[in-house]
């Protein structure tokens, strides 16, 4: 197990280099960002050239990339076009995004698994149909609409929460945004759990457990659920990515300047230090999450072994 983990940690190095390079090339492919800095005016060539020099945009791609990598190792992630160092952007964006992600993750885990187990055990009944309807609803009504509506109802109509999240973003203020963010994933988890539970409910070990005379609750939580969780855990692992990088809409509605927002701004303004810096950290997060998921497989299913 230990060696497996170490090997996985070493694999992060090529992924780190691959990702930074790929993203770097992609932002580069978008073209010269300097034209956008002058508003509705033709850029003045002299200033434009100096700006290109300041951001190393006048050099060939490979040189830009090497310069960038070199700077990263001294802790310098470059600056955004508004003069803010990317490290400063990361320091404000990541903590709030991670908190939001965790809130959403807890919500979708608890509610999703609960709904999934119940509807899996009672296929075709009320709860099951409700989960199906919820799924259809969250998929066809955009997050923006559900988010803005909930914000209006809970923030203005019956003032229970502040519509906008403050800069400190305490956990309490993140509950509503977290719920909005979790909705779509919640549907996935409920349906995944439902399928898994329904499938495993007929497995031999469940029958054995029941025939042993174990209480039903213990059968469900200990035998049925534990073995049904692998697809759910896999999904949660992949979902961390979309909850962090793809929270743009939720972040906008609730005025959170998180990772999604900064990434979007970085892409639209074609600022490679911002984009590459943020994506690199994100990929490291994904790698860790995936490692945890793989280790969880072994916990949930003792037959799975890592050497």
């Amino acid at each position, binding site marked *: 197990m230990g060696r497996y983990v170490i090997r996985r940690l070493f694999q992060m190095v090529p992924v780190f280099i691959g990702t930074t390079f790929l993203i770097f090339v992609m932002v580069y492919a978008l*073209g*010269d*960002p*300097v*034209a*956008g*800095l*002058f*508003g*509705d*005016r*033709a*850029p*003045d*060539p*002299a*200033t*434009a*050239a*100096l*700006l290109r020099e*300041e951001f190393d945009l006048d050099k060939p791609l490979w040189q830009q990339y090497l310069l960038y990598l070199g700077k990263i190792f001294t802790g310098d992630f470059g600056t955004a*076009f*508004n*003069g*803010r160092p990317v490290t*400063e952007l990361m320091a*404000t964006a990541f903590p709030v995004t991670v908190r939001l992600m965790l809130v959403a993750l*807890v919500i979708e*885990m*608890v509610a999703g*698994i609960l709904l999934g187990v119940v509807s899996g055990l009672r296929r075709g009944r009320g709860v099951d149909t409700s989960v199906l309807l919820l799924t259809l609803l969250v998929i066809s009504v955009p997050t923006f609409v559900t988010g*803005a509506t909930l*914000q*209006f109802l809970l*923030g*203005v109509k019956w*003032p*229970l*929460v*502040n*519509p*906008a999240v403050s800069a400190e973003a305490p*956990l*309490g*203020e993140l*509950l509503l945004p977290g719920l909005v963010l979790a909705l779509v994933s919640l549907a996935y988890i409920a349906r995944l759990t439902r399928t898994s539970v329904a499938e495993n409910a007929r497995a031999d070990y469940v029958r054995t457990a029941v025939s042993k005379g174990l209480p039903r609750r*213990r059968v469900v*939580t*200990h035998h049925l659920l534990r073995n049904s969780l692998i697809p759910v855990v896999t999904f949660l692992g992949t979902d961390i990515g979309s909850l962090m990088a793809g929270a743009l809409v939720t972040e*906008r*509605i*609730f*005025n959170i*300047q998180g990772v999604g*927002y900064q990434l979007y701004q970085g*892409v*639209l*303004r*074609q600022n490679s230090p911002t984009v590459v810096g943020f994506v690199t950290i994100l990929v490291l997060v994904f790698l860790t999450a995936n490692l945890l998921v793989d280790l969880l497989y072994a916990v949930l299913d003792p037959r799975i072994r890592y050497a």
Partner: protein
Amino acid sequence: MRTATRVTGAVAVVVTLAVVTAACSSGATGSGGSEVVRASWGDPQHPLEPANTNEVQGGKVLDMIFRGLKRYDPRTGKAVDAVAESIETEDQRNFTVTLRKGWEFSDGTPVTAESFVDAWNYGALVTNNQVNSYFFQYIEGYDDVHPEEEGAEPTARTMSGLKVKDDRTFTVRLNQKFSQWPQTLGYNAYAPLPKAFFEDREAWLRKPVGNGPYKIDSYARGQSMTLSRNENYSGEDKARNEGVELKVYTDSNTAYTDLQAGNLDVADDIPASQLKNAERDLNGRYVNQPAGILQTLSFPLYREEWQGERARKVRQGISMAIDRQRITERIYHGTRIPATDLTSPVLGPDGGYAEGLCGRTCAYAPERARRLIEEGGGLPGGSITLTSNVDTGSHRQWLDAVCNSVNNVLDDNDACRVRPVGTFADYRRDIAAKEMKGMFRAGWQMDYPLIQNFLQPLYYTDASSNDSGYSSEEFDELVDRANAADGPEAVGIFREAQKIVLQDLPAIPLWYQNGTAGYSDRVKGVRLNAFSVPVFTDIEVA
């Protein structure tokens, strides 16, 4: 068992948290002090230097913490003296500037002639990378500090046209006659800078110091800024409130919701579609007033198919095929006004705004539109595209509406097609490279309320924002004459020049854009200036 307890535990935690926050948040309604105005803001796109700020959000702050030689009266839009006691000239080219006594920066240092000259030289010097350098282009010696060619080194660090006479006097020599030049000096780029800026720019940027009606107390970049009344302010427009708290919103809809929830006092730039609700939501507490912004559709006159008399007829026809009245009503709910000239109502008739100057060309007339386009040989290649970036400014809707209008008039659903471009940078790059093929969006937000600013930068041969590549000797000559003429006479000549542009129609005027803002019942006296920025000094907290 373990899983079950854990699940129950988590549910309990979530529920408890929900109850606790609900209880907490309903009590707190933001940190607005007794007489502090809480207002919405957007993250400035450039460092907050006067000559490096070319968008509204940065301008909002500069307007509060700086006063230049002139300022623009928020009601009339006229330039009135601020720090300047007088700006005199006899030949429209050499100006003597005298400052008023007693002005100070909020750090206690005096505002002197040097504060201006140093700031202007800093803004003009090419190596300082200031995006608004071109504001100093009329001052003699600008070419030495800011050579035009890429990569050229500046041959001087200061402009030869600027001379400090004494603490309160300096002279300016322009490189051409420009009678209205003193009226441009209300723009933020011309603000004075304190010594502290030149000593430690980085520190200054973290907490800018100016000479305006407010001073910055704290600044959390990307999040908020608190400003308080500058008690040492020497200008006439002293703040009528104790301070302003600016809060960054990434979406104007959220600011609007926060305003409704009572967490905000002033939210500017209300989304047009919300304006219908604003009446009900805010009990009529919103303003919708003209700003110096004009939307036009430009044509690539550098392409052969858009040159010549026949193409001009086609452009006229397209202009007549656009139902401006209906689009401004149905899509913008009255926050845009159909344009009938190439300036803006904020200039006022004296300033050169000429209602109806465009005449029949800007009026919706399907029959004539069809005929003109037919006479002009039809649309080049049978159909045209309408290009714009779509990442900012919710342009998508009106683009579709304009194309639909043209298509309906020509009874051909393929006549006009929207061609969106992903990013603003991309869009500007295509324009700069002269790669436009059909019509494209051209928005113009004035730098200063002068008719000159609506014409010269846009239509003068090779001017900085002449995106259509328009060139007319007659127009250029009139502009030169107007710049050499005095006051009202200049305005008259500019109007003549504008007639030529409307005749040749390199760009079709679409509509004048209004500024919008909503406000809470805590405040009164909310209005916007001609740059669609709230006049914070006039706001009173009840």
